[in-house]
Protein backbone atom coordinates (compact mmCIF):
# COMPACT_ATOMS: atom_id res chain seq x y z
CA UNK A 1 0.00 0.00 0.00
CA UNK A 2 1.83 3.10 -1.15
CA UNK A 3 1.67 6.69 0.02
CA UNK A 4 -0.69 7.90 -2.70
CA UNK A 5 -3.23 5.18 -1.93
CA UNK A 6 -3.03 5.90 1.78
CA UNK A 7 -3.54 9.58 1.03
CA UNK A 8 -6.60 8.82 -1.13
CA UNK A 9 -8.00 6.64 1.62
CA UNK A 10 -7.47 9.50 4.09
CA UNK A 11 -9.32 11.91 1.78
CA UNK A 12 -12.15 9.42 1.49
CA UNK A 13 -12.46 9.10 5.25
CA UNK A 14 -12.34 12.89 5.71
CA UNK A 15 -15.00 13.38 3.03
CA UNK A 16 -17.26 10.71 4.51
CA UNK A 17 -17.88 12.77 7.65
CA UNK A 18 -17.66 16.34 6.43
CA UNK A 19 -19.17 18.10 9.43
CA UNK A 20 -16.92 16.35 11.90
CA UNK A 21 -13.85 16.89 9.72
CA UNK A 22 -14.67 20.58 9.39
CA UNK A 23 -15.10 21.03 13.15
CA UNK A 24 -11.83 19.17 13.68
CA UNK A 25 -10.09 21.52 11.27
CA UNK A 26 -11.64 24.65 12.77
CA UNK A 27 -8.92 25.15 15.37
CA UNK A 28 -6.23 24.91 12.69
CA UNK A 29 -8.21 27.16 10.31
CA UNK A 30 -8.54 29.88 12.94
CA UNK A 31 -4.93 29.55 14.07
CA UNK A 32 -3.44 29.69 10.57
CA UNK A 33 -5.78 32.52 9.54
CA UNK A 34 -4.82 34.53 12.63
CA UNK A 35 -1.09 34.04 12.01
CA UNK A 36 -1.44 35.15 8.39
CA UNK A 37 -3.49 38.25 9.17
CA UNK A 38 -1.22 39.26 12.06
CA UNK A 39 1.94 38.86 10.00
CA UNK A 40 0.19 40.76 7.19
CA UNK A 41 -0.72 43.59 9.57
CA UNK A 42 2.86 43.71 10.82
CA UNK A 43 4.22 43.93 7.28
CA UNK A 44 1.67 46.59 6.42
CA UNK A 45 2.61 48.67 9.46
CA UNK A 46 6.35 48.39 8.78
CA UNK A 47 5.80 49.45 5.17
CA UNK A 48 3.60 52.31 6.31
CA UNK A 49 6.28 53.55 8.70
CA UNK A 50 8.97 53.28 6.02
CA UNK A 51 6.80 55.18 3.53
CA UNK A 52 5.96 57.91 6.02
CA UNK A 53 9.59 58.53 6.86
CA UNK A 54 10.75 58.22 3.28
CA UNK A 55 8.95 61.58 2.74
CA UNK A 56 11.24 63.25 5.24
CA UNK A 57 14.28 61.55 3.85
CA UNK A 58 16.25 58.79 5.45
CA UNK A 59 19.45 60.86 5.27
CA UNK A 60 17.97 63.37 7.73
CA UNK A 61 19.10 64.05 11.28
CA UNK A 62 17.07 66.09 13.73
CA UNK A 63 19.05 68.13 16.25
CA UNK A 64 17.63 69.81 19.31
CA UNK A 65 19.95 72.14 21.24
CA UNK A 66 18.59 73.00 24.66
CA UNK A 67 21.79 74.78 25.71
CA UNK A 68 22.49 75.64 29.33
CA UNK A 69 19.72 76.94 31.56
CA UNK A 70 17.61 79.73 30.13
CA UNK A 71 20.08 81.13 27.62
CA UNK A 72 18.22 81.98 24.43
CA UNK A 73 21.35 82.63 22.43
CA UNK A 74 20.65 81.08 19.01
CA UNK A 75 23.68 78.90 18.30
CA UNK A 76 23.35 78.72 14.48
CA UNK A 77 26.97 79.76 14.19
CA UNK A 78 28.01 76.80 16.35
CA UNK A 79 26.01 74.45 14.18
CA UNK A 80 27.44 75.89 10.97
CA UNK A 81 30.91 75.52 12.47
CA UNK A 82 30.24 71.82 13.15
CA UNK A 83 29.02 71.43 9.57
CA UNK A 84 32.21 73.02 8.23
CA UNK A 85 34.34 70.78 10.45
CA UNK A 86 32.76 67.56 9.07
CA UNK A 87 32.32 68.05 5.32
CA UNK A 88 32.94 64.32 4.65
CA UNK A 89 29.62 63.22 6.15
CA UNK A 90 27.48 66.27 6.92
CA UNK A 91 25.84 67.83 3.87
CA UNK A 92 23.32 70.59 4.53
CA UNK A 93 21.83 72.38 7.53
CA UNK A 94 18.70 74.30 8.22
CA UNK A 95 17.56 75.75 11.51
CA UNK A 96 13.90 74.97 12.06
CA UNK A 97 11.78 77.58 13.80
CA UNK A 98 8.20 76.42 14.23
CA UNK A 99 5.89 79.41 14.68
CA UNK A 100 2.47 79.36 16.25
CA UNK A 101 1.28 82.81 15.16
CA UNK A 102 -1.92 82.57 13.08
CA UNK A 103 -1.83 83.16 9.33
CA UNK A 104 -4.04 85.85 7.82
CA UNK A 105 -4.95 86.26 4.18
CA UNK A 106 -6.81 89.54 3.80
CA UNK A 107 -9.09 89.58 6.81
CA UNK A 108 -9.47 85.78 7.09
CA UNK A 109 -7.48 83.88 9.75
CA UNK A 110 -6.32 80.32 9.03
CA UNK A 111 -5.20 78.55 12.18
CA UNK A 112 -4.31 75.23 10.64
CA UNK A 113 -1.72 76.59 8.25
CA UNK A 114 1.78 75.74 9.53
CA UNK A 115 4.55 78.35 9.61
CA UNK A 116 8.26 77.54 9.77
CA UNK A 117 11.45 79.52 9.66
CA UNK A 118 14.10 77.69 7.62
CA UNK A 119 17.36 78.24 5.75
CA UNK A 120 17.87 78.61 2.02
CA UNK A 121 18.93 74.94 1.84
CA UNK A 122 15.80 73.51 3.41
CA UNK A 123 13.81 72.85 0.22
CA UNK A 124 16.75 71.05 -1.37
CA UNK A 125 17.22 68.96 1.77
CA UNK A 126 13.64 67.71 1.60
CA UNK A 127 13.55 67.52 -2.18
CA UNK A 128 10.87 70.19 -2.52
CA UNK A 129 10.74 71.87 -5.92
CA UNK A 130 9.71 75.47 -6.57
CA UNK A 131 6.79 75.73 -9.02
CA UNK A 132 6.39 79.49 -9.32
CA UNK A 133 8.64 82.42 -8.42
CA UNK A 134 11.77 81.58 -6.42
CA UNK A 135 12.80 79.73 -3.30
CA UNK A 136 14.55 81.21 -0.26
CA UNK A 137 18.03 82.67 -0.82
CA UNK A 138 21.04 83.29 1.36
CA UNK A 139 20.54 87.06 1.13
CA UNK A 140 16.97 86.69 2.48
CA UNK A 141 18.45 85.11 5.61
CA UNK A 142 21.21 87.70 5.93
CA UNK A 143 18.79 90.61 5.41
CA UNK A 144 16.02 89.12 7.53
CA UNK A 145 13.71 89.96 4.63
CA UNK A 146 9.96 89.96 5.10
CA UNK A 147 9.36 87.47 2.36
CA UNK A 148 8.03 83.91 2.29
CA UNK A 149 7.46 80.88 0.08
CA UNK A 150 4.09 79.12 0.38
CA UNK A 151 2.87 75.60 -0.26
CA UNK A 152 0.66 74.82 -3.25
CA UNK A 153 -2.45 74.39 -1.09
CA UNK A 154 -2.11 77.96 0.22
CA UNK A 155 -1.60 79.32 -3.28
CA UNK A 156 -4.43 77.33 -4.89
CA UNK A 157 -6.98 77.80 -2.12
CA UNK A 158 -6.43 81.38 -1.00
CA UNK A 159 -4.92 83.02 -4.10
CA UNK A 160 -6.51 81.10 -6.94
CA UNK A 161 -3.14 79.63 -7.89
CA UNK A 162 -1.39 83.01 -8.37
CA UNK A 163 0.17 83.79 -5.00
CA UNK A 164 3.51 85.23 -6.18
CA UNK A 165 3.63 88.97 -5.50
CA UNK A 166 0.71 88.84 -3.09
CA UNK A 167 1.12 89.35 0.63
CA UNK A 168 0.29 87.25 3.66
CA UNK A 169 0.30 88.08 7.37
CA UNK A 170 1.90 85.91 10.01
CA UNK A 171 0.92 87.27 13.41
CA UNK A 172 1.32 91.00 12.93
CA UNK A 173 4.06 90.78 10.28
CA UNK A 174 3.22 91.28 6.59
CA UNK A 175 5.28 89.06 4.27
CA UNK A 176 5.62 89.19 0.52
CA UNK A 177 5.10 85.84 -1.23
CA UNK A 178 8.04 85.25 -3.56
CA UNK A 179 7.48 81.63 -4.55
CA UNK A 180 5.11 78.66 -4.55
CA UNK A 181 6.32 75.08 -3.96
CA UNK A 182 5.35 72.05 -6.03
CA UNK A 183 2.64 69.79 -4.69
CA UNK A 184 4.10 67.32 -2.16
CA UNK A 185 1.38 65.05 -0.78
CA UNK A 186 -0.71 62.89 -3.12
CA UNK A 187 -3.80 64.74 -2.02
CA UNK A 188 -3.60 68.31 -0.81
CA UNK A 189 -5.51 69.00 2.38
CA UNK A 190 -5.84 71.63 5.05
CA UNK A 191 -3.14 71.26 7.69
CA UNK A 192 -1.12 68.97 5.40
CA UNK A 193 2.36 69.23 3.91
CA UNK A 194 1.14 71.67 1.25
CA UNK A 195 -0.59 74.01 3.72
CA UNK A 196 2.69 75.66 4.76
CA UNK A 197 4.32 79.07 4.90
CA UNK A 198 8.16 79.11 4.90
CA UNK A 199 10.13 82.25 5.80
CA UNK A 200 13.85 82.82 6.47
CA UNK A 201 14.72 81.59 9.99
CA UNK A 202 16.39 84.90 10.74
CA UNK A 203 13.12 86.71 9.96
CA UNK A 204 11.22 84.17 12.04
CA UNK A 205 13.41 84.64 15.09
CA UNK A 206 13.01 88.41 14.74
CA UNK A 207 9.23 88.54 14.44
CA UNK A 208 8.09 85.49 16.42
CA UNK A 209 7.11 85.71 20.04
CA UNK A 210 6.11 82.07 20.41
CA UNK A 211 8.49 80.21 18.10
CA UNK A 212 10.71 77.28 19.14
CA UNK A 213 14.42 77.80 18.74
CA UNK A 214 17.34 75.45 18.78
CA UNK A 215 15.90 72.88 16.37
CA UNK A 216 17.91 71.92 13.31
CA UNK A 217 17.52 69.64 10.37
CA UNK A 218 20.81 68.24 9.08
CA UNK A 219 21.36 65.97 6.10
CA UNK A 220 24.20 63.53 5.55
CA UNK A 221 25.48 62.64 2.08
CA UNK A 222 24.17 59.09 2.16
CA UNK A 223 21.83 57.12 4.41
CA UNK A 224 24.73 54.93 5.61
CA UNK A 225 26.44 57.98 7.13
CA UNK A 226 23.54 58.69 9.47
CA UNK A 227 25.26 57.16 12.50
CA UNK A 228 28.60 58.80 11.67
CA UNK A 229 26.92 62.20 11.17
CA UNK A 230 25.04 61.86 14.41
CA UNK A 231 28.27 61.21 16.29
CA UNK A 232 30.05 64.16 14.64
CA UNK A 233 27.29 66.54 15.72
CA UNK A 234 27.15 65.15 19.23
CA UNK A 235 30.93 65.45 19.60
CA UNK A 236 30.81 69.03 18.32
CA UNK A 237 28.01 70.02 20.68
CA UNK A 238 29.70 68.29 23.63
CA UNK A 239 32.82 70.41 23.08
CA UNK A 240 30.65 73.53 23.39
CA UNK A 241 28.39 72.56 26.29
CA UNK A 242 30.31 69.82 28.09
CA UNK A 243 26.98 68.23 28.98
CA UNK A 244 25.19 65.46 27.14
CA UNK A 245 21.83 66.75 28.37
CA UNK A 246 22.26 70.03 26.51
CA UNK A 247 21.38 68.55 23.13
CA UNK A 248 19.68 65.62 21.42
CA UNK A 249 20.43 64.21 17.97
CA UNK A 250 18.06 61.72 16.35
CA UNK A 251 18.44 60.21 12.90
CA UNK A 252 15.40 59.30 10.84
CA UNK A 253 16.95 55.91 10.07
CA UNK A 254 17.23 55.37 13.81
CA UNK A 255 13.61 56.39 14.29
CA UNK A 256 12.49 53.95 11.61
CA UNK A 257 14.52 51.21 13.27
CA UNK A 258 13.07 51.97 16.67
CA UNK A 259 9.49 52.03 15.41
CA UNK A 260 9.94 48.97 13.20
CA UNK A 261 11.40 47.01 16.08
CA UNK A 262 8.50 48.12 18.29
CA UNK A 263 6.02 46.92 15.67
CA UNK A 264 7.95 43.67 15.33
CA UNK A 265 7.89 43.07 19.07
CA UNK A 266 4.14 43.55 19.17
CA UNK A 267 3.75 41.24 16.15
CA UNK A 268 5.90 38.52 17.68
CA UNK A 269 3.76 38.58 20.82
CA UNK A 270 0.55 38.44 18.77
CA UNK A 271 1.95 35.66 16.57
CA UNK A 272 2.82 33.62 19.65
CA UNK A 273 -0.75 34.02 20.86
CA UNK A 274 -2.02 32.90 17.45
CA UNK A 275 0.41 29.99 17.54
CA UNK A 276 -1.10 28.86 20.83
CA UNK A 277 -4.41 28.51 19.01
CA UNK A 278 -2.61 26.26 16.50
CA UNK A 279 -1.51 24.01 19.35
CA UNK A 280 -5.08 23.98 20.70
CA UNK A 281 -6.24 23.05 17.19
CA UNK A 282 -3.70 20.23 17.16
CA UNK A 283 -5.06 18.89 20.43
CA UNK A 284 -8.54 18.99 18.87
CA UNK A 285 -7.24 16.82 16.04
CA UNK A 286 -5.66 14.40 18.49
CA UNK A 287 -8.93 14.16 20.42
CA UNK A 288 -10.99 13.39 17.32
CA UNK A 289 -8.41 10.90 16.03
CA UNK A 290 -8.54 9.05 19.36
CA UNK A 291 -12.34 8.86 19.08
CA UNK A 292 -11.97 7.77 15.48
CA UNK A 293 -9.55 4.97 16.41
CA UNK A 294 -12.03 3.67 18.99
CA UNK A 295 -14.90 3.86 16.51
CA UNK A 296 -12.89 2.09 13.85
CA UNK A 297 -11.46 -0.60 16.11
CA UNK A 298 -13.26 -3.27 14.10
CA UNK A 299 -11.98 -1.88 10.80
CA UNK A 300 -8.46 -1.92 12.21
CA UNK A 301 -8.96 -5.52 13.35
CA UNK A 302 -10.12 -6.58 9.89
CA UNK A 303 -7.23 -4.80 8.21
CA UNK A 304 -4.76 -6.45 10.55
CA UNK A 305 -6.31 -9.91 10.00
CA UNK A 306 -6.02 -9.33 6.26
CA UNK A 307 -2.32 -8.63 6.57
CA UNK A 308 -1.83 -4.94 7.45
CA UNK A 309 1.42 -4.42 9.31
CA UNK A 310 1.61 -2.10 12.32
CA UNK A 311 3.59 0.40 10.28
CA UNK A 312 0.88 0.44 7.60
CA UNK A 313 -1.87 1.17 10.13
CA UNK A 314 0.31 3.81 11.81
CA UNK A 315 0.96 5.44 8.45
CA UNK A 316 -2.74 5.40 7.56
CA UNK A 317 -3.80 7.23 10.71
CA UNK A 318 -0.90 9.69 10.75
CA UNK A 319 -1.55 10.60 7.12
CA UNK A 320 -5.24 11.02 7.87
CA UNK A 321 -4.47 13.39 10.75
CA UNK A 322 -1.89 15.29 8.71
CA UNK A 323 -4.25 15.57 5.74
CA UNK A 324 -7.07 16.86 7.96
CA UNK A 325 -4.72 19.39 9.47
CA UNK A 326 -3.19 20.44 6.15
CA UNK A 327 -6.62 20.94 4.57
CA UNK A 328 -7.46 23.10 7.58
CA UNK A 329 -4.20 24.96 6.93
CA UNK A 330 -5.08 25.61 3.28
CA UNK A 331 -8.56 26.85 4.22
CA UNK A 332 -6.96 29.03 6.91
CA UNK A 333 -4.52 30.50 4.38
CA UNK A 334 -7.38 31.32 1.98
CA UNK A 335 -9.41 32.85 4.78
CA UNK A 336 -6.32 34.76 5.94
CA UNK A 337 -5.93 36.35 2.49
CA UNK A 338 -9.63 37.27 2.37
CA UNK A 339 -9.48 38.83 5.84
CA UNK A 340 -6.28 40.70 4.92
CA UNK A 341 -8.03 42.23 1.92
CA UNK A 342 -11.03 43.13 4.10
CA UNK A 343 -8.71 44.65 6.73
CA UNK A 344 -6.97 46.76 4.04
CA UNK A 345 -10.34 48.12 2.90
CA UNK A 346 -11.48 48.76 6.48
CA UNK A 347 -8.29 50.66 7.36
CA UNK A 348 -8.66 52.76 4.21
CA UNK A 349 -12.28 53.51 5.10
CA UNK A 350 -11.92 54.20 8.81
CA UNK A 351 -8.56 55.94 9.02
CA UNK A 352 -8.26 57.72 5.68
CA UNK A 353 -4.78 56.27 5.48
CA UNK A 354 -3.81 53.67 2.97
CA UNK A 355 -2.07 50.74 4.61
CA UNK A 356 -1.96 47.45 2.72
CA UNK A 357 -2.16 44.31 4.84
CA UNK A 358 0.30 42.08 3.01
CA UNK A 359 0.62 38.44 4.09
CA UNK A 360 4.17 37.31 3.36
CA UNK A 361 4.72 34.13 1.38
CA UNK A 362 7.11 32.98 4.10
CA UNK A 363 4.27 33.22 6.63
CA UNK A 364 1.99 31.27 4.29
CA UNK A 365 4.55 28.50 3.77
CA UNK A 366 5.35 28.34 7.48
CA UNK A 367 1.64 28.23 8.37
CA UNK A 368 1.08 25.35 5.95
CA UNK A 369 4.15 23.47 7.14
CA UNK A 370 3.28 23.99 10.78
CA UNK A 371 -0.32 22.83 10.31
CA UNK A 372 0.75 19.66 8.49
CA UNK A 373 3.41 19.13 11.14
CA UNK A 374 0.85 19.53 13.91
CA UNK A 375 -1.26 16.86 12.21
CA UNK A 376 1.69 14.45 12.21
CA UNK A 377 2.65 15.31 15.78
CA UNK A 378 -0.82 15.08 17.29
CA UNK A 379 -1.92 12.25 15.00
CA UNK A 380 0.97 10.06 16.05
CA UNK A 381 -0.33 9.11 19.47
CA UNK A 382 -3.80 7.97 18.26
CA UNK A 383 -2.18 6.25 15.26
CA UNK A 384 0.17 4.32 17.51
CA UNK A 385 -2.81 3.27 19.61
CA UNK A 386 -4.50 1.99 16.44
CA UNK A 387 -1.38 0.19 15.24
CA UNK A 388 -0.93 -1.65 18.53
CA UNK A 389 -4.50 -2.94 18.78
CA UNK A 390 -4.70 -6.68 19.25
CA UNK A 391 -6.42 -8.01 16.11
CA UNK A 392 -8.45 -10.63 17.99
CA UNK A 393 -9.88 -8.12 20.44
CA UNK A 394 -10.38 -5.59 17.66
CA UNK A 395 -12.36 -8.13 15.61
CA UNK A 396 -14.55 -8.89 18.62
CA UNK A 397 -15.25 -5.17 19.21
CA UNK A 398 -18.76 -3.89 18.49
Amino acid at each position, binding site marked *: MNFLETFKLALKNIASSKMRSFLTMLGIIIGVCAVIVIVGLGNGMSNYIQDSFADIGTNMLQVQVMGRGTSRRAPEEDMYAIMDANPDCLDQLSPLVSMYEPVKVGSETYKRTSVAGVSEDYFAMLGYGVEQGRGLEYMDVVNRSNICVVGKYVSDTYYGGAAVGESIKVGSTRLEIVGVLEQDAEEMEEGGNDDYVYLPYSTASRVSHTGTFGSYAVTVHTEEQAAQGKKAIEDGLYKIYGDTNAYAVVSVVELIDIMTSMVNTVMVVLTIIAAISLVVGGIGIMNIMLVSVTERTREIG*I*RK*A*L*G*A*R*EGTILQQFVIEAATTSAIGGVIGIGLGYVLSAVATQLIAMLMQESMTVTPSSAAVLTAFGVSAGIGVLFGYLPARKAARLNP*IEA*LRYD
Partner: protein
Amino acid sequence: MSSLIEFRDVCKLYHMGEYTVSAADHISMSINKGEFVAIVGQSGSGKSTCMNIIGCLHVPTSGTYLLDGRDVGSMNRNELAAIRNELLGFIFQQYNLMPKLNLLENVEIPLMYAGMPKAERRARAKEVLEQVGLGDKVKHRPSELSGGQQQRVSIARALAGRPAVILADEPTGALDSRTSREVINMLRQLNEQGNTVVLITHDNSIAVQAQRIIRLEDGHVIYDGDAHAPEAVVTPHLAGGETA
Protein backbone atom coordinates in the same frame (compact mmCIF):
# COMPACT_ATOMS: atom_id res chain seq x y z
CA MET B 1 1.26 -36.30 2.07
CA SER B 2 2.86 -33.24 3.62
CA SER B 3 0.95 -31.45 6.38
CA LEU B 4 -0.04 -27.91 5.67
CA ILE B 5 -1.11 -27.25 9.27
CA GLU B 6 0.62 -29.05 12.06
CA PHE B 7 0.03 -28.68 15.83
CA ARG B 8 2.60 -30.37 18.05
CA ASP B 9 1.63 -30.31 21.71
CA VAL B 10 0.17 -26.83 21.41
CA CYS B 11 -0.91 -25.14 24.66
CA LYS B 12 -2.48 -21.74 25.10
CA LEU B 13 -2.90 -20.24 28.54
CA TYR B 14 -4.86 -17.11 29.36
CA HIS B 15 -4.23 -15.21 32.54
CA MET B 16 -7.38 -13.77 33.98
CA GLY B 17 -6.48 -12.06 37.20
CA GLU B 18 -5.41 -14.80 39.58
CA TYR B 19 -6.72 -17.62 37.41
CA THR B 20 -4.99 -19.21 34.51
CA VAL B 21 -7.29 -20.70 31.93
CA SER B 22 -5.98 -23.38 29.65
CA ALA B 23 -7.79 -22.85 26.35
CA ALA B 24 -5.70 -25.33 24.43
CA ASP B 25 -4.23 -28.22 26.36
CA HIS B 26 -1.55 -30.17 24.53
CA ILE B 27 -3.32 -30.29 21.20
CA SER B 28 -1.61 -32.21 18.44
CA MET B 29 -3.12 -32.58 15.00
CA SER B 30 -2.27 -32.07 11.39
CA ILE B 31 -4.23 -31.02 8.34
CA ASN B 32 -3.05 -31.86 4.86
CA LYS B 33 -3.23 -29.89 1.70
CA GLY B 34 -6.59 -30.25 -0.05
CA GLU B 35 -8.57 -31.34 2.99
CA PHE B 36 -11.93 -29.95 4.12
CA VAL B 37 -11.85 -30.08 7.92
CA ALA B 38 -14.42 -28.89 10.43
CA ILE B 39 -13.24 -28.00 13.92
CA VAL B 40 -16.26 -28.41 16.16
CA GLY B 41 -16.92 -27.68 19.77
CA GLN B 42 -19.13 -25.93 22.26
CA SER B 43 -18.33 -22.45 23.36
CA GLY B 44 -15.39 -22.67 25.74
CA SER B 45 -14.10 -25.83 24.09
CA GLY B 46 -11.05 -24.07 22.70
CA LYS B 47 -12.10 -23.95 19.07
CA SER B 48 -11.80 -20.15 18.87
CA THR B 49 -8.31 -20.40 20.33
CA CYS B 50 -7.47 -23.03 17.71
CA MET B 51 -8.84 -20.84 14.99
CA ASN B 52 -6.82 -17.83 16.24
CA ILE B 53 -3.67 -19.93 16.32
CA ILE B 54 -4.29 -21.44 12.88
CA GLY B 55 -5.07 -17.90 11.64
CA CYS B 56 -1.77 -16.61 13.04
CA LEU B 57 -3.61 -14.06 15.14
CA HIS B 58 -2.15 -15.70 18.24
CA VAL B 59 0.99 -17.64 18.95
CA PRO B 60 0.90 -20.73 21.21
CA THR B 61 2.11 -20.42 24.81
CA SER B 62 4.02 -23.64 24.33
CA GLY B 63 4.31 -26.32 21.67
CA THR B 64 4.90 -25.81 18.01
CA TYR B 65 2.60 -24.67 15.24
CA LEU B 66 3.91 -25.17 11.72
CA LEU B 67 2.05 -23.54 8.86
CA ASP B 68 3.33 -24.70 5.49
CA GLY B 69 6.46 -25.85 7.29
CA ARG B 70 7.12 -22.47 8.92
CA ASP B 71 7.30 -22.11 12.68
CA VAL B 72 4.72 -19.46 13.52
CA GLY B 73 5.51 -19.44 17.24
CA SER B 74 8.77 -17.59 16.75
CA MET B 75 7.40 -14.83 14.54
CA ASN B 76 7.01 -11.17 15.50
CA ARG B 77 3.85 -9.19 14.86
CA ASN B 78 4.88 -7.92 11.45
CA GLU B 79 5.93 -11.39 10.29
CA LEU B 80 2.57 -12.69 11.50
CA ALA B 81 0.80 -9.97 9.49
CA ALA B 82 2.79 -10.93 6.41
CA ILE B 83 2.08 -14.66 6.77
CA ARG B 84 -1.64 -14.00 7.33
CA ASN B 85 -1.65 -11.98 4.17
CA GLU B 86 0.21 -14.58 2.18
CA LEU B 87 -1.12 -17.92 3.38
CA LEU B 88 -4.54 -17.36 4.92
CA GLY B 89 -7.97 -16.35 3.65
CA PHE B 90 -10.37 -15.40 6.42
CA ILE B 91 -14.15 -15.75 6.29
CA PHE B 92 -15.86 -14.27 9.35
CA GLN B 93 -19.30 -14.81 10.86
CA GLN B 94 -20.06 -11.07 10.62
CA TYR B 95 -18.65 -10.83 7.05
CA ASN B 96 -16.47 -7.90 8.27
CA LEU B 97 -16.63 -5.94 5.04
CA MET B 98 -15.75 -2.24 4.95
CA PRO B 99 -19.07 -0.39 4.68
CA LYS B 100 -17.60 2.66 2.92
CA LEU B 101 -15.83 0.71 0.19
CA ASN B 102 -17.45 -0.96 -2.81
CA LEU B 103 -17.11 -4.69 -3.43
CA LEU B 104 -14.05 -4.37 -5.66
CA GLU B 105 -12.24 -2.21 -3.13
CA ASN B 106 -13.18 -4.59 -0.34
CA VAL B 107 -11.78 -7.59 -2.18
CA GLU B 108 -8.64 -5.62 -3.08
CA ILE B 109 -7.65 -4.94 0.55
CA PRO B 110 -5.50 -8.06 1.13
CA LEU B 111 -3.95 -7.66 -2.33
CA MET B 112 -3.10 -4.05 -1.53
CA TYR B 113 -1.29 -5.11 1.64
CA ALA B 114 0.55 -7.72 -0.43
CA GLY B 115 1.85 -4.86 -2.57
CA MET B 116 0.21 -5.97 -5.83
CA PRO B 117 0.08 -3.24 -8.51
CA LYS B 118 -3.29 -1.58 -8.98
CA ALA B 119 -4.26 -2.91 -12.42
CA GLU B 120 -3.44 -6.50 -11.50
CA ARG B 121 -5.29 -6.13 -8.22
CA ARG B 122 -8.40 -4.82 -9.90
CA ALA B 123 -8.41 -7.65 -12.45
CA ARG B 124 -7.94 -10.28 -9.75
CA ALA B 125 -10.70 -8.80 -7.58
CA LYS B 126 -13.09 -8.79 -10.55
CA GLU B 127 -12.20 -12.39 -11.34
CA VAL B 128 -12.92 -13.71 -7.83
CA LEU B 129 -16.13 -11.69 -7.54
CA GLU B 130 -17.28 -13.31 -10.79
CA GLN B 131 -16.30 -16.67 -9.37
CA VAL B 132 -18.70 -16.17 -6.43
CA GLY B 133 -21.43 -14.92 -8.76
CA LEU B 134 -21.27 -11.20 -7.97
CA GLY B 135 -19.58 -10.02 -11.15
CA ASP B 136 -22.48 -7.67 -11.90
CA LYS B 137 -22.36 -5.89 -8.52
CA VAL B 138 -18.70 -4.89 -8.24
CA LYS B 139 -19.49 -1.19 -7.72
CA HIS B 140 -22.11 -1.79 -5.03
CA ARG B 141 -21.59 -1.14 -1.36
CA PRO B 142 -21.92 -4.11 1.04
CA SER B 143 -25.03 -2.54 2.63
CA GLU B 144 -26.85 -2.90 -0.71
CA LEU B 145 -26.50 -6.69 -0.60
CA SER B 146 -28.27 -9.49 1.28
CA GLY B 147 -26.46 -11.37 4.04
CA GLY B 148 -25.71 -14.34 1.79
CA GLN B 149 -24.31 -12.06 -0.89
CA GLN B 150 -22.16 -10.24 1.66
CA GLN B 151 -20.78 -13.58 2.84
CA ARG B 152 -19.94 -14.40 -0.79
CA VAL B 153 -18.00 -11.10 -1.01
CA SER B 154 -16.09 -12.14 2.07
CA ILE B 155 -15.36 -15.53 0.41
CA ALA B 156 -14.14 -13.67 -2.67
CA ARG B 157 -11.90 -11.53 -0.46
CA ALA B 158 -10.51 -14.70 1.18
CA LEU B 159 -9.84 -16.23 -2.24
CA ALA B 160 -8.28 -13.16 -3.82
CA GLY B 161 -4.80 -13.68 -2.44
CA ARG B 162 -4.79 -17.37 -3.51
CA PRO B 163 -4.10 -18.47 0.07
CA ALA B 164 -2.89 -21.90 1.17
CA VAL B 165 -5.73 -22.19 3.72
CA ILE B 166 -9.25 -20.82 3.73
CA LEU B 167 -10.22 -20.33 7.33
CA ALA B 168 -13.97 -19.91 7.89
CA ASP B 169 -15.07 -18.90 11.40
CA GLU B 170 -18.79 -19.72 11.84
CA PRO B 171 -19.45 -18.58 8.26
CA THR B 172 -23.15 -19.44 8.50
CA GLY B 173 -23.74 -18.08 11.99
CA ALA B 174 -25.62 -15.02 10.77
CA LEU B 175 -27.47 -16.68 7.87
CA ASP B 176 -30.78 -18.51 7.45
CA SER B 177 -30.65 -22.24 6.62
CA ARG B 178 -31.15 -21.86 2.86
CA THR B 179 -28.37 -19.28 2.51
CA SER B 180 -26.23 -21.32 4.88
CA ARG B 181 -26.45 -24.26 2.49
CA GLU B 182 -25.42 -22.02 -0.40
CA VAL B 183 -22.36 -20.83 1.48
CA ILE B 184 -21.40 -24.35 2.56
CA ASN B 185 -21.85 -25.62 -0.99
CA MET B 186 -19.58 -22.88 -2.18
CA LEU B 187 -16.92 -23.90 0.36
CA ARG B 188 -17.25 -27.55 -0.84
CA GLN B 189 -16.86 -26.40 -4.39
CA LEU B 190 -13.72 -24.48 -3.48
CA ASN B 191 -12.41 -27.59 -1.76
CA GLU B 192 -13.13 -29.67 -4.87
CA GLN B 193 -11.10 -27.14 -6.85
CA GLY B 194 -8.13 -28.02 -4.63
CA ASN B 195 -8.34 -25.48 -1.83
CA THR B 196 -7.69 -26.45 1.75
CA VAL B 197 -10.68 -25.37 3.83
CA VAL B 198 -10.83 -25.23 7.63
CA LEU B 199 -14.29 -24.58 9.02
CA ILE B 200 -14.83 -23.60 12.65
CA THR B 201 -18.36 -24.18 13.96
CA HIS B 202 -20.42 -25.24 16.92
CA ASP B 203 -23.14 -26.62 14.62
CA ASN B 204 -22.97 -30.37 13.89
CA SER B 205 -25.29 -30.08 10.90
CA ILE B 206 -22.80 -27.72 9.30
CA ALA B 207 -19.76 -29.70 10.42
CA VAL B 208 -20.91 -32.93 8.75
CA GLN B 209 -20.61 -31.19 5.38
CA ALA B 210 -16.84 -31.47 5.77
CA GLN B 211 -14.77 -34.58 5.06
CA ARG B 212 -13.22 -34.71 8.46
CA ILE B 213 -14.20 -33.50 11.90
CA ILE B 214 -11.91 -32.50 14.75
CA ARG B 215 -14.00 -32.21 17.89
CA LEU B 216 -12.68 -30.23 20.84
CA GLU B 217 -13.74 -30.12 24.43
CA ASP B 218 -12.08 -28.28 27.31
CA GLY B 219 -9.03 -27.68 25.23
CA HIS B 220 -8.57 -31.33 24.25
CA VAL B 221 -9.13 -33.13 20.97
CA ILE B 222 -11.78 -35.74 21.72
CA TYR B 223 -12.45 -36.90 18.18
CA ASP B 224 -10.47 -36.63 14.98
CA GLY B 225 -11.67 -38.56 11.96
CA ASP B 226 -14.24 -39.13 9.25
CA ALA B 227 -17.12 -36.65 9.37
CA HIS B 228 -19.62 -39.39 8.57
CA ALA B 229 -18.77 -41.74 11.41
CA PRO B 230 -21.46 -41.77 14.10
CA GLU B 231 -18.99 -40.85 16.89
CA ALA B 232 -18.14 -37.66 15.05
CA VAL B 233 -21.28 -35.86 16.12
CA VAL B 234 -21.61 -37.24 19.62
CA THR B 235 -20.76 -35.03 22.50
CA PRO B 236 -20.06 -37.65 25.14
CA HIS B 237 -21.24 -35.88 28.28
CA LEU B 238 -24.40 -34.48 26.74
CA ALA B 239 -25.45 -37.61 24.94
CA GLY B 240 -25.37 -35.98 21.52
CA GLY B 241 -27.43 -33.00 22.60
CA GLU B 242 -26.95 -29.60 21.02
CA THR B 243 -26.75 -26.68 23.36
CA ALA B 244 -27.63 -23.34 21.91
